[in-house]
């Protein structure tokens, strides 16, 4: 079982000893078999085991290591590239990258780009410049909004 879940803690590397001890005390107070209602011995045992594992920074490192994906580093040898999967993975994390980045600034940039494009399409319709300005505004937004995205996981 995930020891972080057993203590109701997020699986993060920056937890402190006090946070872990506090979480364990809370769970233990609610589930201890000495309680009048008999508690929840199974949950208490799980929390105690989790606390034993997470009480030191090194223990947390170990527990976190069990949860993170770097075991996926394969043994030495050629790995077939999977561009389609990479693109899909990039797109899948995009909403989270926007959320953890600067979404308001990105939105502001999008509004400016849209306004410029709309102005061009309204003021000079039917000219070669209008679609060019729309393309230019979209490109400007794409180039400048990149820095507003949070880096992908692991970077």
């Amino acid at each position: 079982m995930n020891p972080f879940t057993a203590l109701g803690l997020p699986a993060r590397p920056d937890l402190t000893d006090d946070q872990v001890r506090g979480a364990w005390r809370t769970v233990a107070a609610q589930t201890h078999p000495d309680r009048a209602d008999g508690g929840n011995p199974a949950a208490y045992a799980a929390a105690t085991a989790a606390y034993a594992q997470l009480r030191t920074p090194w223990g947390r490192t170990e527990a976190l290591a069990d949860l993170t994906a770097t075991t996926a580093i394969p043994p030495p040898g050629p790995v077939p590239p999977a561009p389609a999967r990479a693109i899909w993975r990039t797109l899948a994390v995009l909403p989270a990258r926007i959320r953890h980045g600067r979404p308001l600034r990105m939105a502001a940039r999008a509004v400016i780009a849209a306004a410029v494009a709309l102005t061009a399409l309204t003021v000079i319709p039917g000219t070669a410049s209008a679609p060019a300005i729309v393309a230019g505004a979209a490109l400007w937004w794409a180039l400048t909004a990149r820095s507003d995205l949070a880096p992908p996981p692991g970077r």
Partner: protein
Amino acid sequence: MSVWGLLRALAVLWLLRQGLRLARALIVAAALVVLWPVTITAAIAMFAAWLRGWPPARLYRAAAWSTVMTAVYLITAALYGRGWRTVALAPVRDWQAASRLLEHASILHAALLMVPVAVPAGLVVGGLAWTWRINAISTGTAGLSPYAPAVFDARQWRRQVRAARGALAAPGTVPLVTGAGTVPVGPVIRAVARRWTPVLAIPAVSFTRHMVIVGSSGSGKTNLMIRLWAGWYAAAAQAARRGRPRPLLAALDCKGGPDARAKAARTRRVLHGVGARRVAIWPDEATVSLWDIPPRELAVLLHQMTEHGEGAAAYYADVSQAVLTMAVCAPGGPPRSAAGFLERLDPGWLAGAYADARPAEATALRAAGPHLGDIQLRYATLLNRLGPALDGPGNIGDADAWYFILEGTREPSVAEAQAMAITELIAHAATSRAAEPRAMLLAADDYSAVSRRVPLSNLYERGRSLGLGVMVSAQSWQGLGADDDERYRIAATADGGLWVMQTPYPEPLVQLAGTRRVLETAHKLIGATWGDEGTSRIQHAWTADPDLIRQLATGQACYIHRGTATYVQIARPRPSALPLPAARTPARPVIIPPARATGNGHPDHDPPTIPLPLAGLDDVLGPGAAP
């Protein structure tokens, strides 16, 4: 020719020259007016570059990107009207239409019509004009006074710093590693003798060479080092997914103290964020075994770990070395623990081990016999002082990263011996054929604190020969080595680059970047004012300006590499806020146990004392808590 005729000829010549000058100015003015869309864009671009401290390269890059707009414009023009002439004359037609609209005060309409052509052209013209302006000012041929170059440079530096700091605010500007495997360090403030890029990114291959970091206390050295470690780790982990060896980082914090613990915890957090699984902090949480070192090397190391005198003491040093070699390389195999080793420094044990010894060994044993007690006492004291963290069951290869804390300030002699042992263990891990090959980076922060007996250059040259990257830091030029010879040996062989942060004596370091040719202009003094006549000559100036380095603010660094200097604003290392994906395969079981004793007596070394498991609810919440 008469005097009158000569005067008339001179006057005609002067008028002709002035006329030509006026004509040239008029032609330029006319061109600027006629090409008003380009002129306006160029003026705006140049003003923005001046205000933000941008180099011309930035305008050229923007021009290159905006050609996409021009391409769409030309494609659309081709779709609207057939024939290449229509396409080629489309900008002229639009310019005529825009000029007519301008006459009718339709400014927005006119501007929009010209944007696809005027923007790239204007940016290029603005870039050229800005280049000319910078050259003119810095060579002293423009500006209102001879102080103009210095004033201009100082002002532009301030603006460049402000722009670089502004770029740091964007979360995606400086990730810890790029998709291409380079390690971004921070936005570029100024690039000298090198092509400008918005962000300085170090290729991962530079880490397999050697890097030197020099910066005073408080200059931001820690941030830089953690960023480089994390970036290297992330880049190496990316490479590992493509079948290259897994990364292993070994960082030696040679000063120690409470700061080191905070730094270790921060390093661990950042490394976790880039996918490191096990980040071991030595000696507080994890141990290594000195006894993993092959017997011959172990005997030499144990001998080197003790202080040796000169003169008559050299004799005892030889005796000690002979005994150590016999004890460690005994027929039954090397010792596996400190207790096992000390047990061997006993006449009875050695006699038993070498019962079938050759005559030479038996003679040596007999000769060393009277000294064995002293040698045992000496090594018992040494191993006791080193603490139990070098006598544990752990192995360097068991973790993804090690953070070794050596108390170099508090206990220099102990820290020196520990540093020797740890570097030997790392060297063993790098060369052991039995172990999994790993991409290794050995980073030593303030190594000078423990380098009295293991000079930094040794570490450096050792790393080179073992094929592992070495990164060393010092607080000053003097901290790099005992004498100038050693300092130059370290700094001059830093193929991976030299990071110079704020330091009061950067001269020897900036020499390694070399000089560049600049034009220096002298103005002729007429009375009490500077006239418009003077001389120019080619001079050599430092590529990395030592005065600028002395004035660097916290978090700014000058990266010297292959005759170039890049001033950079170091970005604080923060891994992505996005969680790493969940593991698909379980991790290996725990193999590094925590340190089991009190280390060096530092309160932080003590192992946790919370009793587990707890017996009752009172033990959890205090007496009387049980309902």
